[in-house]
């Protein structure tokens, strides 16, 4: 870890000003990700601006849903009765994340900003276009069991590590961001960006932008949602594959459907083809199987991760059976 300066921000404006003044400055909240990366030498910030004293911890009901402050702790959100009732997929994803100790430290905003677990990204001796643009992606023909089967590029096949973001994608969450030009909102689906030829860029945020809240719109599908996480061990592991499914079934037909995937792409991945295969169709096993097949469309393995494509199909099918109440 490099030597760095530390400052505690009293308000959002001074936090943002501190970052604006120093291109190598970074925000720190729970620190469960950035401190790890600093220990590995992957992140070498000159200044850490501690934002944990900003008043962004609230979890509040609004006319349209729930607004979760960016600094709300993962554990607090998971335990909140409105989240558990109206967005079970979110509570389940949170409780399937990390460990209780980490969830007591980590924040919702920080969770969206967490960086990939790719072993080549985290090992500064290795080639990685995300960490060191232009050096190449060592994972494509290396140890890639945990890597992406969709959404990657020749520059990067990492996976996004968050469970929460996958769940939020399935409930159409909206990210509130404060930037130089004031407040703006970004649908979560457009918040993370695919690597393409610039894998070092992971979100639409500019340096100094501050996530203030995540808005969860209420919906019938969100109330009937489910998170399925598949991993080698029973707890405390990033997903091999995960599925967030939200379904509104009325009169035996699917009126709304969301299928989001984790562990398969450099961003939380929305399976639009699967959703299209569900919408308007009867909520039957045959429909779910077809949607599960559609979810794998365009997926490509790199050797060790080939199994994820089969696993996606099986896991989507399982998750849809759960929310379709035919399990």
């Amino acid at each position, binding site marked *: *870890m490099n030597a760095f300066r530390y400052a505690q921000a009293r308000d959002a404006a001074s936090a943002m000003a501190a970052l604006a003044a120093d291109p190598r400055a970074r925000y720190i909240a729970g620190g469960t990700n950035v401190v790890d990366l600093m220990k590995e030498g992957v992140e070498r910030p000159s200044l850490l601006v501690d934002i944990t004293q900003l008043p962004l911890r609230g979890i509040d009901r609004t006319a349209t849903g729930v607004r979760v402050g960016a600094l709300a702790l993962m554990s607090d959100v998971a335990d909140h009765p409105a989240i558990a009732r109206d967005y079970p997929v979110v509570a389940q994803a949170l409780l399937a994340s990390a460990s209780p100790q980490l969830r007591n430290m980590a924040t919702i905003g920080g969770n969206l900003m967490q960086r990939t677990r790719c072993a080549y990204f985290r*090992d500064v001796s290795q080639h990685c276009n995300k960490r060191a643009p232009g050096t190449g992606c060592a994972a494509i023909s*290396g*140890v890639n069991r945990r890597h992406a089967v969709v959404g990657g590029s020749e520059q990067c096949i990492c996976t996004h590590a968050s469970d929460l973001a996958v769940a939020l994608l399935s409930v159409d969450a909206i990210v509130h961001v404060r930037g130089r030009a004031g407040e703006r909102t970004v649908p979560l689906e457009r918040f993370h960006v695919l690597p393409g030829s610039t894998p070092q860029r992971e979100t639409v945020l500019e340096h100094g932008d501050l996530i203030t809240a995540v808005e969860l719109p209420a919906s019938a599908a969100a109330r009937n949602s489910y998170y399925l996480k598949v991993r080698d*061990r029973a707890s405390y592991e990033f997903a091999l594959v995960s599925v967030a499914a939200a379904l509104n079934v009325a009169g035996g037909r699917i009126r709304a459907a969301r299928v989001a995937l984790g562990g398969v792409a450099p961003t939380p991945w929305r399976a639009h083809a699967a959703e299209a295969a569900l919408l308007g169709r009867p909520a039957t096993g045959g429909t779910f199987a077809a949607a599960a097949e559609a979810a794998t469309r365009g997926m490509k393995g790199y050797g060790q991760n080939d199994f994820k494509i089969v696993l996606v199909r099986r896991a989507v099918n399982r998750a849809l059976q759960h929310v379709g109440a035919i399990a």
Partner: protein
Amino acid sequence: MSGLVGAPVDRVDGRLKVTGAAKYSAEIALPGLVYGVMVLSTTASGTSQVDADAARRAPGVIAVMTPQNAPRVDSGGNGAGDRTLMVLQDEVVRYDRQPVAVVVADTFERATDAAAMVRVRYAAAPAVTRFDAAAEYKPASGGRDVDKHKGDAAAALAQAAVKVDGTYIVPVEHHNPMEPHATVAQWDGDQLTVYESTQGVINARRTLAQTFGIPTASVRVVSKFIGGGFGGKGSVWPHAVLAAMAAKLVNRPVKIVLSRPQMFGSVGFRPQTVQRVALGAGSDGRLSAIIHETSAQTSVFDEFMAGTGAISAVLYGTPNLTITHRLRRLNTSTPTFMRAPGEACGSFALESAMDELAYATGIDPVELRLRNDTQVDADGKPFSSRALREALRQGAERFGWSRRDPRPRSMRDGRLLVGMGVAAASYPTHRSAASALVRVNADGTALVQSSGVDIGTGAYTVFTQIAAEQLGLPVEQVRIELGDSAFPAAPNAGGSQLTASAGSAIKLAALDARAKLLALARGDASALIGGAAAIAALMRTGGVETIEGRSDAKPGDDAQKYAMHSFGAQFAEVRVDPDLGTVRVVRFVNAFGAGRILNEKTARSQYIGGAVWGIGMALLEHTRYDERSGRIMTANLAEYLVPVNADVPAIEPIIIPEDDPHVNEIGVKGIGEIGIVGAAAAIANAVYHATGKRVRDLPITPEKLLA
């Protein structure tokens, strides 16, 4: 206090540990202590060129040690220790994470920061990074353990009514004790004191003395508390020598503590093994042939061979047996002992094959093992005691084996497949020479000293029990000191032999002290009854300040006459999700006959821990290398998975009482390692029963069950 031995006495060091008062090697504070951080290679073969200018100028840096300025030492192989140590004696890189420099600074943080500033350029040389690409050869070391032949196994196999023949793979595994390796080294003139996280201070002292070319008497090694060793701390590793070299270079005490990523590669590991096991049997299941061929990896500069096939000469009787061991040289550090070094892997192959034979013959797996029970080993030696039959019987009873429908995929729990598996276990009873001191003080209390190290297993406690029982004292009136090479010699806490060796010595030393007390009482044993008060009165009357009991205990003739082993049986129940390929162990019963049990509580912990290790081995643990560079790409606990609490079900150990007069003075066989033997096979066999899929390469991860 007769009856103390065997009782489930609480750990005598428990309070020290839970209050933080127990000081581990990394916590040793010395005046003037400075901090070393190793810079490790990032490739597996080549020559390194170190540019340390920036690091030398960094704040707080005292020195950067490189091959240019490192003190010259004997880095071993033949002379020093059990392995060659890559300690900056040349620029040649032979494995990933080999030390290429050490930064010494006034704080750990500054040393860490400066270590990241060291620039290393490599002139790459070809590396052997793939097991398949390395040529196989017959090891020069290993002696008569390398190959064993009895009868004609190949011919018997060809003629067998039923045969199974499979290849079983166990990948590289890392020990991952909770406490990382740590060394604090201090020179006082030519006297070296090292606080070291080691399983054996006498062994470490010898290696360090030879490395630095100084008399053994000039080295003191202290290892008071260890947060897990598992064989990984059985040897001296480069960081320990480097700490002492750096201390010499900067003329101050130096501490080096490994980071978790450094625990992969810079120290030892369980080598990959590829085993062929072929069994021939009659239709009644009686074995006519066992062929057990092992190919394992070693480093390009040293040989390490574990007796992987040895278990095939012990578990079952067969007229025809072939056991071979071969090695392959890869660009890794030299592999080392890891909990049941040979038997853990060997039992996975043999006991998976026995399960396959059970299905091939249609005989129940427990019954098949009972039919092949034997009273002599492959050399014809009788066993000093053998509890295999009883372990299988009691284990099956407790586990509810009779409820098992043997047909694969026949048992379900909702949508999950249910599987039940069994495997047998054995582990040899080792013993080495050891000495001990038992001193009786004027107040009637006693002090026990041995250089043996308690690596977390409970040696402090059981040794206290042994001495207390002989002296008729409660455990509270016996103080014990371990883990200092200044104390009477004991072997490594490895090979499950410390209790047998040092425990026997402590019993003999206590008997010696007791004999002297009895002499003081003119043979009146009643004068010794009444704990410390009675003994204090006796000594006061006799005008004696202290009494010292000493011993030199060593293996007797019985080791030549008998085959000495622990035996056991492992029973696992799993749930497998047939769609997602995930396996969870839901129940585990294991039963062992391992001689006399000195403390039921600490013994159960060893058996439970062995099962937990078996779960990791069966389902999770896998070190993955980048085959282009030889770099370990799973060098953290998020990528290298060990079981977490949620993976560990109720584990029910059964202790089979055993009275073996042949093994040693205290009748113990050692319990630290047998718990893992067969555990992975029991789980793999349960997975087969659940799914009908025979996975022969560990770990059993979802992708292997999805197809």
